[in-house]
């Protein structure tokens, strides 16, 4: 019988939530790595019991943990993330050049085809790869050394590479997103990269249509349609149908086009989910109502999903890594909040309930569908 396993990263440790296919009763284990910030935990699609976790603190830096038994036991692997070649500078908040400095791993993306290959997106923005299950890491420096790299500037959360999306039809094509530089794509396995930001407009930069400089919060893809991408930007929900070559706004009737996560239904490539957040500056749900919005038309036409979610006095945030979908039928949808709740819906968003309510602030949610 199928099971689901949620991998939840929080400000004070990692948690694993498991359920059978009904997704009504959940077992909660953790915290793993108690007291550390767990930015992301993700499992290998090839070997689901192989998990990678990014563990960090401002005191003692970065650790990468690996489990080969579905999270029962963990071991530290390599934590040495060193930029390749001449390090150079990027732009600092005040416009001055600032040396690239490694701060933390935001995102770990295991390969779709090789359990020993895993990619890491880090702050200051760079793309690393391990081909030995995390035992050693090497930067693919073509991204950071792109001709625009010296002009990249951090958003409020830092200059972070937070999103890595692999094309399941072409293992050499990978999309990444950086705040606040934008989307880049490689077609040669990470050696060279091109900005993929045509069509994005950002009022927060002098040239609203600039090649780079856009604060992209998240991109998502359905595996059956790798040329179609969805994006939640710092204002605007966007869609591309040509592999990121161009983008079009699909915010439609959303109450706010600001937010962090975006995801795609496991079985309906045109069904997408966002969680609108009021901005600028407030970063909580409009009107204190926690609403997931679903579009069945790839954007533009959105419906609010509220059944089981708090509809008054709710002022949490949902971060970019903190939403995921399982691949059961019906599709399960999950998200975690800055208030420590993890909500789940076993029916594609029609009904919601809190799986847990009082975790530390949630940084990331991933889900594995296990047979």
């Amino acid at each position, binding site marked *: 019988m199928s099971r689901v396993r949620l991998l939840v990263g929080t400000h004070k440790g990692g948690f694993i939530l498991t359920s059978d296919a009904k997704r009504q009763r959940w077992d909660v284990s953790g915290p793993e790595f108690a*007291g*550390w910030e767990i930015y992301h935990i993700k499992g290998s699609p090839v070997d689901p019991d192989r998990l990678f976790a990014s563990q960090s*603190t*401002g*005191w*003692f*830096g*970065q*650790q990468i943990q690996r489990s080969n038994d579905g999270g029962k036991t963990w071991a*530290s692997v390599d*934590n*040495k993330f*060193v930029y390749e070649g001449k390090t150079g500078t990027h732009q600092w908040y005040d416009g001055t050049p600032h040396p690239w400095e490694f701060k933390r791993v935001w995102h770990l993306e295991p390969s779709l085809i090789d359990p020993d290959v895993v990619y890491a997106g880090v702050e200051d923005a760079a793309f690393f790869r391990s081909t030995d299950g995390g035992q050693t890491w090497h930067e693919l420096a073509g991204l950071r050394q792109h001709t625009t790299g010296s002009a990249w500037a951090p958003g409020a959360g830092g200059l972070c590479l937070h999103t890595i999306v692999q094309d399941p039809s072409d293992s050499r094509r990978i999309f990444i997103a950086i705040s606040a530089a934008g989307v880049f794509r490689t077609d040669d396995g990470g050696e060279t990269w091109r900005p993929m930001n045509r069509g994005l407009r950002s009022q927060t930069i002098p040239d609203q249509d600039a090649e780079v400089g856009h604060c992209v919060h998240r991109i998502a893809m359905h595996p059956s349609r790798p040329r179609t991408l969805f994006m939640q930007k710092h204002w605007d929900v966007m869609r591309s149908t040509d592999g990121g070559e161009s983008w079009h706004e699909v915010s439609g009737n959303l109450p706010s086009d600001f937010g962090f996560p975006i995801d795609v239904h496991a079985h309906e490539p045109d069904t997408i989910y966002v969680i609108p957040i009021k901005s600028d500056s407030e970063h909580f749900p409009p009107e204190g109502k926690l609403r997931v919005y679903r579009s069945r038309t790839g954007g533009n036409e959105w419906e609010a999903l509220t059944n089981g979610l708090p509809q008054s006095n709710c002022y949490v945030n949902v971060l970019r890594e903190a939403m995921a979908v399982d691949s059961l039928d019906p599709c399960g949808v999950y998200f975690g909040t800055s208030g420590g709740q993890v909500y789940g819906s076993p029916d594609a968003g029609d009904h919601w309930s809190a799986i847990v309510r009082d975790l530390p602030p949630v940084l990331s949610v991933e889900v594995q569908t296990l047979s």
Partner: protein
Amino acid sequence: MIRIVLPYHLRKLAQVDGEVRVQVDGQVTQRAILDALEAQYPVLRGTIRDHVTQHRRDFVRFFACSQDFSLEAPDTPLPEAVAKGEEPFLVVGAIAGG
């Protein structure tokens, strides 16, 4: 043997309880102690000082014999009481944040 007291999170990482003891041949300095510590517990590499620059991480301090050695040069000899194992070398996570 040199006695080292690690903060809670580093003890957990290194999977040790209580004090750690390392052998240092030659002059006993911060660098020599940390080199020996990292050789004995490789998981601690990068947690106390930067992998590349070897600079002390900002929120880590080094105390011994009721003195703060955090700002001393890494090759400055430490007190004889540390070298003899009479006093521990303390690696401390600074009080910062919640």
